[in-house]
């Protein structure tokens, strides 16, 4: 690592600097600026198609950025600075950086051919080269923590959506990430299952985890997030303290969006 000790605490966990992304001729991110401090929870809200998922995926380099810079933990994501040149990283090195960033998807994306426990220990064992015992012990602890201690040997398809999503969170946490990304983690769930997942996320936030959460749950955003950023048409239109953005938005487009989702 290039930064250490007291200096590390000053560097934001995520710093997006004029991040641009286009798919073909469609410009999806039009120069996004956003910082996420250590231990901070930032919720991204905004209409469908505004680029929230794409922005989140640029943070862990599932998408490459076309312009600007995405800094994660003091380093440009996907590149390495040598002298005054940025060298694109190879598969191995990108994977190593990704091990420090957990991601939770809307549709869980658990590995269906593995048991819950196997889902959790796969990456710690293959990517971090941990011993089976160490990984298993931590995995079982995390399953307890998300209230699924008795499901270790179950296959994902035998779990409810809410249970699957909690397994997905535990799977990401099993890598001991510094940063967690959530892409609409409750959007695919039946309403009565949303609460359990949000509870797990609340506990995680309370434990000091740095989190970036794309969500339509305005209650969660208001209560748990430190700041909320409103995306529209590939830009951050408004960003500020959660309470303020959700209850007293300044920008007309934010007001219109919030009025529509209520």
């Amino acid at each position: 690592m290039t930064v250490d000790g007291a200096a590390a605490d000053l560097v934001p966990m995520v710093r997006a600097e004029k991040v641009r992304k286009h798919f073909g001729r469609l410009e999806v991110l039009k120069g996004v600026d956003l910082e996420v401090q250590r231990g901070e929870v930032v919720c991204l809200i905004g209409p469908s198609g505004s680029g929230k998922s794409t922005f989140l995926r640029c943070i862990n380099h599932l998408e490459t950025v076309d312009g600007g810079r995405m800094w994660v933990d003091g380093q440009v994501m996907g590149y390495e600075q040598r002298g005054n040149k940025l060298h694109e990283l190879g598969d191995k090195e990108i994977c190593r950086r990704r091990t420090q960033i957990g991601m939770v998807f809307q549709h869980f994306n658990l590995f269906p051919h593995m048991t819950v426990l196997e889902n959790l220990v796969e990456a710690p064992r293959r990517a971090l080269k941990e011993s089976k015992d160490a990984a298993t012990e931590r995995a079982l602890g995390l399953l307890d923590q998300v209230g699924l201690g008795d499901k270790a040997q179950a296959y994902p398809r035998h779990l409810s959506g809410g249970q699957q999503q909690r397994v997905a969170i535990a799977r990401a946490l099993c890598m001991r990430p510094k940063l967690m990304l959530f892409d609409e983690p409750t959007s695919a769930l039946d309403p009565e299952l949303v609460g359990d997942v949000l509870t797990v996320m609340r506990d995680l936030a309370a434990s000091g985890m740095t989190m970036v959460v794309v969500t339509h749950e305005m209650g969660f955003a208001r209560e748990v997030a430190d700041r909320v950023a409103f995306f529209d048409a590939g830009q951050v239109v408004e960003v500020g303290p959660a309470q303020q953005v959700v209850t007293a938005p300044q920008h007309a487009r934010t007001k219109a969006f919030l009025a529509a989702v209520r």
Partner: protein
Amino acid sequence: MTSLPAPPLPDIDKAAGPDLTVVPKRHPVRWLTAAVLLLIGAATLRSVFTNPRFGWDVVNTYLRDISIARGLAVTLELTAVCMLLGVVLGVVLAVMRLSVNPVVRSAAFLYVSFFRGTPVLVQLLFWYNLAALYPTLSFGIPGLSLDANRMITPLVAAILGLGLNEAAYMSEIVRAGILSVEQGQAEAAGALGLTRAQTMRRVILPQAMRVIIPPTGNETIGMLKTTALVSVLAVPDLLYSAQILYSRNFQTIPLLIVASIWYMVVTSILTIGQFYVERRFARGNRTLPPTPLQRLRQMFSTHAPIATGRQP
């Protein structure tokens, strides 16, 4: 008395009460079709065993003949080696077809087009006659010079011809399998920090197996039978061994029956094997397909459609 039909009974057992017997629905048509088919089968068998020209005593003698057994061994070896070559090269080609590099992609595409676009018998003859095209083989290595006639024995030509051809078909099967796995799986694996190779090996291919295994079983059975083509190269496989025998004793039909019986025995064993391999790879993904006994019981007892085990 009223002419209104009784309302549908929600629970037969409860509605029946203590003094009524439940009579399951009969299936007269099922029994009738089964009987007709059994009758046709019996007539066929009778003709087969009463026509002396089938030469069953000759069949019986040669069924355990040593040269037939050797031929069967060659057929089995050839099937195994060619399928192995086909599967390994097929996986490589499938991954190449999905590469981001357009040159790699096109190379695999051309390979598949060429081998699928020409008859395998023609390919076999090409390999067999390679020496006419390249009398010496150097593989571009300076100083190396191998006599093609000695290198390309009939067996080598057979393995190359059948194996390389099979790879083209297997690559399409593997590719379909890989594409059948949701995009989200690779993303989740990547986000966890697994490399592309680890993702392919640990996450994508195991799930693709569900789609890859059934047609691969069919390919293996097909390969077993296709190996009979190598008799044109005078490779002593099962068919060629039978041909050698009947060219001497003129018992053509009985010896072809002997070969057919052995082909059928092996394909039957392979089919059973395929069934259990499929069950193994269904792990965690869907309800297991019923065993043959379960199917039979189902057919005569319920209205339920026979589960095919292919539900999404």
